[in-house]
């Protein structure tokens, strides 16, 4: 597999038409870099082409939720539970469960997803694919 770190960075830079130094591992795709859905699609297609790892946009939600049932990941108001926040810490280590639990809406989780988080996701999928 191609070097995942550089493949992901290159995909983000090219899909969003950014300068190389504008994209850091800590940059959040949506909030910091301004990616919209079609940008995300473009990024994922580019990564598939360079690494062979296929990720669909809907896979991001599955990855972030980690198989936790909806009613355990977030409460009746769609706010992340303690269990959900603890899981997010495993796939998005930059997050603080104490800060997220009880305040972050489930559909806002993707706004915290960084370039490095995407790198790790691609690596995990690549490992899984053998």
């Amino acid at each position, binding site marked *: 597999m191609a070097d995942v770190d550089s493949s992901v960075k290159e995909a983000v830079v090219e899909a969003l038409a950014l300068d190389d130094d504008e994209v850091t591992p800590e940059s959040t795709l949506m909030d910091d870099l301004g990616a919209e859905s*079609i940008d995300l*699609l473009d990024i994922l*297609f580019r990564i598939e082409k360079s690494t062979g790892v296929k990720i*669909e*946009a*809907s896979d991001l939600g599955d990855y972030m*939720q980690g198989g936790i049932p909806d009613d355990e990941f977030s409460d009746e108001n769609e706010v992340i539970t303690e269990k959900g926040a603890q899981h997010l810490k495993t796939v998005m280590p930059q997050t603080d469960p104490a800060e997220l639990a009880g305040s972050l809406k489930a*559909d806002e989780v*993707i706004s915290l997803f960084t370039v490095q988080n995407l790198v790790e996701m691609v690596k995990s999928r690549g490992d899984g694919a053998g």
Partner: protein
Amino acid sequence: MTAPADPTVRVGIDAVAVERLRRLVEGDEQRQQGLFTPRELDYCRGKRRRYEHLAARFAAKEAVLKAFGTGISQRMRWTDVEVLNERSGRPRVLLAGAVADFAERHGLSQLDVSLTHTEDLAFAHAVALWKQEGACAST
């Protein structure tokens, strides 16, 4: 249909560059099927400006999700929002899967969408009417 007592209106708008959409999906059936339903692909297949129509449908999917106060998240799939055309040409939206579940859970009452496109850009505007005040977050 009678309007609900305390409706909440949310709108969503999106623009898609036709050439970009074309570049992403042209010649790749699998990608097309990941973004569009068989009926959407059938409708656009015979069109002279096929990618303008596909771009408008992609914009509509995003506009609907914006009107729902969410992006493509929580396991929603692009094909969960389907844009069909009535005989008059008026677009009509059908929901499925995780998006339909979201709509039902939050009390969606009515949903309408309008599309337009030029050679370069496609736009869609969605309006969602929800039964309960504050039932759906806005972005």
